[in-house]
């Protein structure tokens, strides 16, 4: 089963669709978690996901706002979608009717 951070990357990449690349995925994760996401963790996890066949990445076109530098684009593969779905189902199942609000 994939890990929590792997799930975050898969979910962010799916949500961003055609606009999924390093900086945008990082932004999405930081907004969702409210915690900083390091480039090191993001890129090494992206590599791992790609090695597992859950994500496909490629170099996009250079843009002016990035000082003429290219983006590392990402897309979730069907296997990645299946892995993320399995992770979500497991979390939902194990959570059941637990209410996490503080008493």
């Amino acid at each position: 089963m994939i890990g929590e951070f792997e799930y975050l990357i898969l979910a962010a990449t799916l949500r961003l669709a055609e606009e999924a690349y390093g900086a945008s995925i990082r932004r999405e994760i930081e907004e969702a978690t409210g915690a900083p996401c390091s480039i090191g963790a993001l890129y090494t996890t992206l590599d791992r996901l790609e090695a597992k066949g859950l994500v496909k990445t490629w170099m996009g076109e250079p843009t002016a706002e990035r000082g003429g530098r290219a983006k590392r684009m990402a897309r979730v593969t069907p296997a990645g979608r299946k892995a993320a779905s399995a992770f979500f189902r497991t979390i939902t199942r194990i959570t059941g009717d637990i209410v996490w609000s503080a008493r």
Partner: protein
Amino acid sequence: MSGHLWHLTQLIARILQPAEREAVLGDLLESGHSTTRALRDILGLTLRRAVRGIVPHIASPLLALPLALLLTVLARNIADFIAIYLWLWTGNLDTHLLTTSGYWHGVTDTAPELLLACSSLILWSWSSSALAARYSRSTAILFCTALLLLAPLGAPAFLTSHLSLIRARDFHSNDAVFRSLFYRSLFPCLVQCLFVLVPALTAIQKPTQETVS
């Protein structure tokens, strides 16, 4: 982004592959975070990349060499222990001694102990080699090569004295045994080859046999 820290960030980013460097520096520029955070980010990534690149290279010798050294020290200790009894049993051997019950009592008393020591050495060597092979075949080959090189030389003296509590050859009463070149140098090498190197080689050959069958 500009300034010394950004220049330093770009300098460190040179360690990365060109495509990754391009994407990462672009991400840092686009994010608009401070240069301190950009520097921290690039340091984190390069460190992770460096560790990923180095670990496979250092893990193999870190596993294989200490195991080989430890087994060599053990083999040499056991070899010295066996040497004393071999010298006692064979050095004064004649037809009269063979008919003496005391001689056979000594042999039957000590032989199980020697057999147990040899069997343990074989098992430790086999399992160490299997462990190394489980990590990678090159680690197991490095382990066997180290055992082969250490067989005639032995482990470094400082290591032997630190790892061995009692060494038979340190007692003057055993000088007569270890004055002989055979028991002093050749026999330990022979014991290491037979009871350490051969089992180690057997352990790394096993997966190949399984694959073939």
